[in-house]
């Protein structure tokens, strides 16, 4: 299907892509002095840990509360970056003097490191779109390279997602091309950078097992061993040194801090929002009817929960529950893959896996919605239905990131980013599915890009929720009930994401 055609115009394509990337880079540069979250200090501290301590103490150090909790490859990356940081300003990488170091040198260096690491995203997108027609290619660039969500999370809030998505897209592009070994290898590497990507591991496993390891028992087993060896080699490269130092348990403990509670401080717009609300609603009703319902000991606004159950009525949710829920949600797609593993669907399958992880996972961050909105961008140009779905999803996923930037200074930036994204999507999809174009291909079938009234009213609802949270709520209630606007955003976006989940599931199951 998506066979690679090394066209003679490749340099021209790269030049155009670089132009798009260049514009994005300029916006990123201009955003350097903006607000950044504590993640900047987290990553600075990791630079310091990896630079000043021997490898055996990386995962045991407790100088700051921001302990290293990413897998080893990311630690190696920090070690690599810290060499340059040391050249620029030694204080950045000083374990003790560097704590909460806010000098321009530190901020500029770290921001620049994110901007430069986005080159991986550039290459990932380039590779994923090489075989497509130029219009589709351009649209995908718009959706990914100029993704407002990525800008907000990476270049305002501060993280290295662009770099990681570059790896993911690279891996997926190899799979889509049928080069399974390379795809599997890259995914294994990605897992050793950030283990949150492991949600898609079942899909990868089933897909590779059925697509790569086929052709009889002997051949299949040989291929399975090859793939297994590769994955083991990657993991050995990552974790080997820590096994050698007898640290592996400590590493695992750091990487999976289940003590953290079901929801993040700001609730990610997922299934558990409804669960919590249902619990509160039932408790409220029962209290009305005269039952004596004790208020839960732990509250959800604190983030760290501990042992007490935060629910008044409904059964408590444990990490194991969420794990089973995710697997259950994944199972239809796993069966589908088992029966008929198709390279063309791989972007959808992986995106679906991340959607399940986002909806039912334990302690999910709102940023994780990028995990599926970025891979889905690659398939958003395939059909009109995809375009309609993506239009809604990307707006919702970007809007759900708004609470990350709560200061007034960034308010116009996030609004403008979302607005520009929406308008560009609107015009580009309209042009792609304008009557004249389709008329060319499918003989007079006129079907333009337009959103139905349900979608339309839902999107108008987004505006209403935003106006309520920003203007009406502070005006009517002042400082009282400060969590209501955030809760509204979570709940409202959760509806959109749930819809997207069902839509994705449907599209995977009915695709033949």
């Amino acid at each position, binding site marked *: 299907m998506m066979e690679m055609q090394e066209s003679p115009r490749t340099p021209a394509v790269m030049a155009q892509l670089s132009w798009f990337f*260049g514009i994005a880079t*300029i916006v990123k540069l201009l955003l350097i002095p903006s607000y950044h979250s504590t993640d900047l200090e987290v990553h600075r501290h990791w630079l310091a840990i990896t630079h000043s301590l021997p490898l055996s103490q990386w995962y045991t150090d407790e100088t700051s509360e921001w302990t290293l909790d990413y897998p080893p490859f990311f630690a190696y990356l920090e070690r690599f970056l810290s060499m340059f940081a040391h050249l620029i300003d030694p204080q950045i990488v000083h374990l003790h003097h560097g704590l909460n170091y806010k000098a321009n040198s530190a901020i500029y260096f770290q921001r620049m490191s994110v901007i430069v690491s986005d080159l991986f995203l550039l290459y990932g997108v380039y590779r994923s779109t090489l075989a497509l027609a130029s219009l589709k290619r351009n649209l995908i660039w718009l959706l990914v390279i100029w993704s407002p969500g990525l800008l907000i999370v990476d270049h305002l809030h501060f993280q290295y997602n662009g770099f990681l998505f570059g790896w993911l897209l690279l891996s997926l592009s190899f799979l889509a091309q049928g080069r399974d070994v390379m795809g599997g290898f890259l995914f294994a590497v990605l897992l050793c950078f950030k283990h949150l990507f492991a949600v898609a591991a079942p899909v990868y496993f089933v897909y590779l097992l059925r697509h790569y390891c086929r052709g009889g028992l002997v051949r299949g087993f040989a291929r399975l061993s090859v793939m297994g060896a590769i994955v083991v080699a990657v993991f050995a490269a990552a974790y080997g040194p820590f096994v050698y130092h007898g640290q592996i348990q400590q590493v695992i403990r750091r990487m999976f801090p289940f003590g953290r509670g079901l929801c993040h401080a700001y609730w990610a717009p997922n299934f558990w929002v409804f669960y919590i609300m249902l619990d509160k609603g039932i408790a409220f009703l029962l209290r009305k009817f005269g039952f004596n319902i004790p208020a839960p000991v732990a509250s959800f606004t604190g983030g760290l929960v501990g042992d007490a159950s935060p629910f008044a009525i409904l059964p408590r949710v444990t990490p194991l529950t969420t794990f089973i829920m995710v697997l259950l949600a994944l199972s239809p797609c796993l069966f589908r893959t088992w029966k008929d593993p198709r390279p063309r669907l791989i972007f959808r399958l992986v995106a679906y896996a991340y959607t399940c992880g986002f909806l039912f996972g334990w302690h999910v961050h709102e940023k994780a919605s990028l995990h599926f909105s970025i891979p889905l961008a690659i398939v958003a140009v395939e059909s009109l239905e995809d375009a309609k779905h993506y239009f809604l999803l990307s707006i919702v996923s970007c809007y759900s990131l708004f609470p990350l930037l709560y200061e007034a200074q960034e308010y116009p930036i996030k609004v*403008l980013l979302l607005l520009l994204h929406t308008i560009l999507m609107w*015009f580009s999809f309209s*042009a792609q599915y304008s009557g004249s174009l389709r008329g060319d291909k499918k003989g007079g079938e006129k079907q333009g890009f337009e959103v139905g009234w349900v979608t339309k009213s839902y999107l108008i609802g987004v505006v209403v929720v935003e106006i309520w949270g920003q203007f009406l709520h502070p005006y009517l209630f002042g400082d009282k009930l400060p969590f209501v606007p955030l809760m509204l955003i979570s709940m409202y976006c959760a509806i959109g994401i749930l819809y997207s989940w069902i839509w994705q599931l449907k599209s995977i199951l009915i695709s033949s």
Partner: protein
Amino acid sequence: MKEKGEMKKVKKVKDKVNDGQDDDPWWWLIQEGIRPSFLCISLFALLVRVAVGLHPYSGAGTPPKFGDYEAQRHWMEITLNLPPKDWYRNSSVNDLSYWGLDYPPLTAYQSYVHGVFLTTFDPDSVALFTSRGYESYLGKLLMRWTVLSSDVLIFFPAVLYFVLVYRSMRFGMGQNSDVAWHIAMILLNPCLILIDHGHFQYNCISLGLTIAAIAAALSQKDLVASMLYCLALNHKQMSAYFAPAFFGYLLGKCLRKKNPLLEVTKLVLMVMGTFAIVWWPYLQSKDAALAVLSRLAPFERGIYEDYVANFWCTSSVLVKWKKLYSTQSLRIFSLAATLITCLPSMVQQILAPSSKGFLYALLNSSFSFYLFSFQVHEKSILLPLLPLTLLALEESRSILWLTHFAMFSMFPLLHRDKLVLAYMALYALFILMYFAPCGPGGRCHGTKTLDNTQKTKRSVDFITSITFHPLVMGFLGLCSLILHVIYLTMHPPNKYPFLFEAVIMLICFSQFVLFTFYFNSKQWVLSKHLTSKDKQKKLI
């Protein structure tokens, strides 16, 4: 008519599809017409402006005088708390030596409106006396937003108006992609963004009014044009840089009408009426009006400030004007020099007013003022740049080159404001936009020359060959790049603390002078060409 247009569009789309659409990554946006592209580009331009606003402003955290930001804030404080009569008068409540109001009344009214906005959200920031040197997170934000809103309300609509008029003027000439590129060139002009949203000023208002006036003049609404221009003039007296061109073009058009005297009278009444309305609070007594006027002409501040790349400052390396002559005589010198240099372009417009000629005349008269008038700032290069961006499609080579030097001439100023990062980013943005895929910028360096210069090519040839000689361009480009690096990394020798500024000034000045000659000759060649065309028409 409409059907035909749609047919064309469909045909174009089909062509694009057949061509593999490889040429233009933006065709899906531009094929819809000007408005969608304008919407997208202006949203992006707005985003860039907000992002530049994150950076420091002039005089941030530098008491006791601070910078332009404090000046604008102080004017809000004064206009908000005092009656209009006292705005321009030194008194116990209004110390004119501390950033006294020295712009015309429209700026004062604008400050008042913005002051009202500030006081509703952050009363401390504009409280009388106590707010001096007030700097806060919220204060900065609100101030930035006042500039943004001025941009959105005045500059952007004016640009849309101009682009629509300009497009209908060159009917059938430009492709949509050219128009989109043109919009980007005007809205993403790095100098304007840096000065307004970085350094902190409200040039977007006066320049926006000027653009609207130009558009009105081009669409034959002379009365509206003169009113808008008067408003621009009443916002910043610097708008007078364009006065000769407006005067020449409007007068020239009047003279060609049936009843020239009536037309001129109408214009004069319009101008006087506009002025009367704007100056109303100060027209009650002669003293009040004179007090305002004396504030507007700060002759005591000397013929030039800092290191501006104009004639007086550059020649002062050789001739110490300030020591040799009194301010009085320097005033006369500069007035004479300005008038003499802008006379040719003005006369040309009176004799043969034409739309394109008018734009060139704006360029020429503003360059004359920049080079020769009294008390010019580095920031004044914005005024010549404005008509140049409007002419971007005609002068696509010049705009690249001159924007480069305009930026360069402001580099020391922006470096002082700690805006180097924004400077580099916006410079790169300009280059990227200029060479946008399939924009005219990428194409113009080919063999294609402007159609109307072919006949009379020889006269411009000489100057063109100097200005656009690849060796000269390469050498100067390299020089300015090296100078940027030197300026950022090295200290000047103690004996000449302003050595680098002086060198930058010399280079920029040489280019500005060269281009003034070039544009003047262009304007005259244009008129020759046009008149010969007219004659041909008459013969036919």
